[in-house]
């Protein structure tokens, strides 16, 4: 009975009903898409950033993160591969070591500080996009002996080109002098000036010999197909690897590797959430106002029902049914449409016109793919759910003071 009355009322005030449904639906749709888009940006940021060097996760010697020096390296063995090769979600892994050195050119006219890295040339292209950013010459190969790849600026500062030799001067793991000559085989342009000024890579085997650290590395870099899978690696690899070495190992997720990126994303997300919440609140206030007006407008109707013997609480039920139905309809259609639109762009990708250069500077590709997540889909419904409680509270409050219709009100 009450349900049918509520249903009829919705039809009677068709326009108002549809406007409410549309308001809730469109806001929800927009938020689902916007948040998914935002998560897409974050994912792209993470991906591009981490793919550049760090990988999605690493195992390091426990003190390496705080003090990245040669002393903080771990001992590894061939047995490690048999553990790592069994992990399905692991798409690539590779060892690295690094230290600061002074590079000088052939004529010894220019000296520059650089971060020299020992890498595994066959693994590196899957771990780091640097290997693909060679603008002259080639990247390192496993068989290379005394070959080096330099960043664009560094090469320019050293006034050197592919084929030239550079001298490398540093301190090995025992504190003795490490010095040797290397031939430039490739020059890389990362589009990141800071990296271009510092980048210098040799093979890990050269590195281990030069710096007197056989079978040692500081980082074991992991790549997975999805960034989300990386955190799950820890229980899969840590116990076994730790049992194979005396060194103290630590698993580092991407948040530990790039705390600034993590914080930037968190900050950006919370400010976005605040803005969206404010937007939703405005919509909820408008809905409250609409409901308030409609209760005033229908006062006679409710008073008549009450005069005829319908309890105020039952009248509230009618109204609440109306509100819940409209809001739910708006929410469901908003979520479904929002997901559909988002899915379309997940499939299609979003290219922001005229943005190629800008994005490249920050290491981003110009095509973004939104990401549906619990937060992006659930945020608007959650806030509207809260709004629904407000609306119902107002109904109950207004109906408490309901007076039955009397001849005088007419």
């Amino acid at each position, binding site marked *: *009975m009450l349900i049918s*009355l509520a249903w*009829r*009322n919705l*039809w*009677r005030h068709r326009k108002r009903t549809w406007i409410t449904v549309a308001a809730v639906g469109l806001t929800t749709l927009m938020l689902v898409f916007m948040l998914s888009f935002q998560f897409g940006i974050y994912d792209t940021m993470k991906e591009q950033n981490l793919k550049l060097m760090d990988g999605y996760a690493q195992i390091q010697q426990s003190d390496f993160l705080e003090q990245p020096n040669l002393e903080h390296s771990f001992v590894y063995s061939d047995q490690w591969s048999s553990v790592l090769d069994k992990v399905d979600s692991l798409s690539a892994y590779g060892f690295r070591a690094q230290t600061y050195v002074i590079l000088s050119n052939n004529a010894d006219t220019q000296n520059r500080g650089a971060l020299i890295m020992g890498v595994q040339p066959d693994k590196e292209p899957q771990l780091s996009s640097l290997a693909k950013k060679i603008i002259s010459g080639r990247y390192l190969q496993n068989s290379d002996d005394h070959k080096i790849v330099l960043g664009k600026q560094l090469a320019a500062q050293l006034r050197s080109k592919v084929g030239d030799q550079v001298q490398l001067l540093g301190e090995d793991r025992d504190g003795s002098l490490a010095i040797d000559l290397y031939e430039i085989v490739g020059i890389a342009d990362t589009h990141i000036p800071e990296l271009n000024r510092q980048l210098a890579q040799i093979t890990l085997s050269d590195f281990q010999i030069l710096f007197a650290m056989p079978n040692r590395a500081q980082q074991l870099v992991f790549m997975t197909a999805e960034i989300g899978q990386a955190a799950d690696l820890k229980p899969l690899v840590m116990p076994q690897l730790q049992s194979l070495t005396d060194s103290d190992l630590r698993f580092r997720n991407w948040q530990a590797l790039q705390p600034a990126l993590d914080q930037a994303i968190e900050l950006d997300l919370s400010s976005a959430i605040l803005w969206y919440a404010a937007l939703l609140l405005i919509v909820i206030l408008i809905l409250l106002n609409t409901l308030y007006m409609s209760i005033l407008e229908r006062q*006679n*109707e409710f008073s*008549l*029902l*009450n*005069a*005829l*013997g*319908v*309890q*105020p609480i039952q009248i509230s039920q009618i109204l609440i049914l109306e509100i819940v139905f409209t809001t739910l309809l708006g929410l469901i259609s908003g979520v479904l449409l929002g997901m559909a639109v988002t899915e379309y762009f997940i499939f299609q990708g979003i290219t922001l016109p005229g943005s190629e250069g800008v994005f490249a500077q920050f290491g981003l590709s110009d095509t973004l793919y939104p990401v549906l997540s619990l937060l992006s889909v659930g945020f608007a419904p959650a806030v509207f759910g809260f709004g629904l409680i407000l609306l119902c509270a107002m109904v109950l409050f207004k109906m408490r003071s309901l007076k*039955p*219709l*009397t*001849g*005088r009100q*007419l």
Partner: protein
Amino acid sequence: MSDLSESLMLLQDVTKTFEDGNRTIYAVDHLDLQIRSGEFIALYGPSGSGKTTLLNLIGGLDRPSSGELSIGEYQLNRMSEAELTDLRLMEIGFIFQSYNLIPVFSALENVAFILQMQGVEKEQALKQSREMLHQVGLQNMENRRPAELSGGQQQRVAVARAIVSKPKIVLADEPTANLDSQNSQELIDLMKHLNQTHKMTFVISSHDPQVIDSARRKIHLKDGKIVSDEIVSD
């Protein structure tokens, strides 16, 4: 008093006051009244004499400022709002001057609504309501919405709804005020007919001589007091 039927309603020393600024208005002023089952009463008097106020008190739409008011075993002035609402649902039929019907329901549904709210099965409620609409002469208009009915027809639906659940008493506040004289007469005849065939009690407030003339008991109100109370024998 020739009528020997039992007492239905009793008002003892009932007063209803309204504060108008610093003035107290006695809309109903220390009034005593007994209503017997099966009566057909017209309340008349000048505007502001307290007719509506009195009907509201009798129907439990409003509470007296003082005095005792009872319908059968119910003591109206001692009941809570919720109890009064239930009493209205179960025991009292209302016919207002206008805005009587639920706009989203058809004539039939409007009549059946009360029964269903009382807990009568839907099928049974619809059947009884159909018979009732038949009795008020609206057998062909069951499915029309109030907006699709004339004023007179709407009032007939209101009458059907007021009596379908066989209430103890039917109250009508100026039911003919918005009708032309032919429709008024038809409505009066209908109510009189129902009063006679079902022994249903009617209290009708009106300025309308047609209504007053047709009543068997005429109560003249002035300044919240009864100035005359006469019973015409047929």
